[in-house]
């Protein structure tokens, strides 16, 4: 395949950055999208130019580190697929592909396509856990949890923290990310104990980080590689209102 690329280049977080044109011949359709970028970097290196910086690690869709906007879509054209699992067979011969970083106030660009998503860590730090120390746990089977509840908790827990939900949201809201953790933990009896303070602290932190509000466009669910449901956002709002009402 022969493809044209327009890629966001930005030296550092202070730089204004701009789109730059590249061309690649002999792209194999079975290459992954990131292997195509590897190939471009190899070509740049041969010309003595700086490689394009992009986030990636596991390349099997689970670590959540990769993620770019491809032709305006988070993680590209396929549904429920991370950037690393997208392959060049999803593009046309001769196509021009636009590649940009995920953009949000809370996700500053560090260099080229690399962004800073530590805001997500701070949202989790605010309460995205069950407060149990090593050694305190009771026998695992002493708390039966029905199969459907365990499965529903898993559905929410499957979030990989890639940030596509934020990138695709016109408000840059982190409601899907935050609500997925809230749902995961509140559905389980072990996690229900701290439900009220958890939801209040996590929502407050989400706001403090500069993420916007949710206005229910549901774009996040459409682009989520893990198919996390927007119903979690409804649950978060319910839990939040409940917690505010019952606050002492």
């Amino acid at each position, binding site marked *: 395949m022969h493809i044209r690329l327009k890629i966001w280049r930005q030296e550092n977080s202070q730089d204004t950055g701009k789109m730059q044109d590249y061309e690649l011949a002999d792209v*194999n359709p079975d290459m992954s999208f990131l292997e195509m970028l590897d190939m471009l970097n190899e070509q740049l290196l041969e010309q003595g130019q700086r490689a394009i910086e992009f*986030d990636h*690690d596991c390349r099997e869709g689970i670590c959540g580190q990769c993620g770019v906007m491809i032709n305006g879509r988070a993680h590209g054209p396929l549904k429920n697929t991370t950037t690393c699992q997208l392959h060049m067979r999803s593009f046309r011969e001769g196509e021009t592909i636009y590649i940009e970083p995920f953009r949000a106030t809370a996700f500053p660009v560090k260099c080229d396509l690399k962004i800073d998503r530590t805001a997500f860590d701070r949202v*989790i730090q*605010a309460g995205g856990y*069950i407060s149990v120390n090593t050694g305190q746990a009771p026998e695992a089977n002493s708390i039966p949890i029905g199969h459907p509840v365990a499965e529903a908790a898993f559905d929410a827990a499957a979030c990989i923290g890639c940030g596509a939900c934020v990138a695709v949201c016109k408000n840059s809201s982190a409601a899907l990310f935050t609500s997925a953790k809230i749902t995961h933990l509140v559905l389980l009896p072990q996690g229900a104990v701290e439900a009220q303070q958890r939801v209040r602290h996590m929502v407050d932190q989400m706001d403090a980080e500069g993420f916007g509000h949710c206005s229910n466009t549901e774009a996040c669910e459409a682009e989520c590689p893990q198919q996390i449901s927007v119903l979690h956002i409804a649950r978060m709002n319910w839990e939040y209102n409940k917690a505010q009402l019952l606050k002492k």
Partner: protein
Amino acid sequence: MLDAKIPEGPLEDKWRHYKEHAKLVNPANRKKLEVIVVGTGLAGSSIAASLGEMGYRVKAFCFQDTPRRAHSVAAQGGVNACKNYKNDGDNVFRMFYDTIKGGDFRAREANVYRLAECSASLIDQAVAQGVPFGREYGGYLNNRSFGGVQVSRTFYARGQTGQQLLLGAYQALMRQVHLGSVQLFARHEMLDLVTIDGKAKGIIVRNLDTGEIERHGAHAVILATGGFGKIYYLSTLAMGCNGSAIWRAHKKGALIANPSWTQIHPTSLPQSGEYQSKLTLMSESLRNDGRIWVPKKEKEDRLPNQVPEEDRDYYLERRYPAFGNLSPRDIASRAAKERIDAGYGVGPLKNAVYLDFSKAIKDQGVDKIREKYDNLFRMYEKITGVDAYKEPMKISPAAHFSMGGLWVDYELMTTIPGFFALGEANFADHGANRLGANSLLQACVDGYFIAPYTLANYLADEIRTPATDIHHPAFDAAAKQVEDQLHLLKGIGGKLSADYFHKTLGKILYDKCGLSRAAEGLEQAIREIKALRQQFYADLFIPGGLAINSELEKAGRVADYLELGELMCHDALTREESCGAHFRVEYQTPEGEAMRNDKDFAFISAWGWTGENQSPVWNKEPLTFEFVTPTVRSYK
């Protein structure tokens, strides 16, 4: 002489006895003691969180942008624990025996027994953290069986067990960060270990965002940096996984044990072209329901579904009827390689075998299979474009796990006092072959239940030691060495990328120090690696500056791989027997099974660094078996 410090007494009392007599640090003193943890996967996050909870002052480092990305996240199938919930005869001794047999009797009895003994508590801990393990309709935890065992002791969270366990540990860690007991340094890579008067006192790290070289001091340093299987370039590991932390610690005096013992996982996706950067793993759990076969006819050109039953060779069921498709990984991988090399491989490059679910779908219904493995089937379809509900998967062996690693004693302490290695970074529990679902277990048990005790036993003698002075000449020297190396690499000014050298090295190792090894090939590999290393220092090119620069990161890691790779070949060459994943073609039975030599090789090889281009020092820790009798490992 290496002293593993194994406690006296009967096997089942050793750990209890150790805990009863280990020294303690009182809570008031803990807050004066600083501990550095490098790596935030399961072992790193769990020890950092546990130490924070206990009141120590902890600094946690990872090269990823957040601890949750560490490669433990990618483990799919499950975690073993002998809860005996299935009432199928499981117990600590059986789990110990399965593990030590699975490792081909090349691990320490006491360590392996402790792993089995602590396994049940891990499930309790994870459930309390909210890890959503698979459950039965009555609400109780479910299990599946895994390769190399005949009981069901594997707990799982769909095909994302590693992710869920890591998130549990990550959340525990984030809680401690919030409480201020752990300071987190993401995007920091350890580039050297600092020792003062023979004790580990700190590390030199590079901030990967700013390029700044930083010094961090502590009373003890814990490495939990995972394995180095990425040395093969094509592997199931993440792109960033590396062996630099352990290699640089090795150069500061820590011994590395059995570095050539690499697990080649049987169920990975095959390579499809030269551009490929990674071989994606398909969980071993698939072998519970999938049947592995190749056509009976060489160069079969019919599509898999058109090959009738009588023309299929279910070679694992044929060769190993007792364990069949659930044979251990080393055996399954070697059997696949044997068929592929004999010309029965399938796929465009004839480098794969089939993993077929048609019988399981017929017996159990497609819904049941979907519930168990849907994420894996979807992943398979994304990568290959093939629907495995309708057509068999194509799988192939790929480098996966380092059984070798830093030599540690029973306390998980390396040969440097105050320097500990946990999880895959150490060599301790898996012998020459790791059983499936034991890696998550070992990482967690090391971090949650072992190191908190053994570290206290060390730190109890350090309570009068003041905070480490990071302006000590040892820090100056280490920081200078790190900066010099970065400038050296930057200044080579050749033409070739770090990836070029990494891929070339990977190919040498796959061919000559992979699934099968021979003396001649290993000697040749050593010569080739030496030449490649020379070429690296003459022809490497790193564009860009000293701040964010992934080419610079890669170059440093490849520089270390080029030395570690040579040691791996040396280790494989000197072990003149076949055991577990280490298969020397000279030592095999007429049926092609591994021939172990307990008389001459029942020991651990622990290598010491002596300097560049010099032979390493060979230390041997004898393996004595008091409680089990090593047998020929048969899965027939």
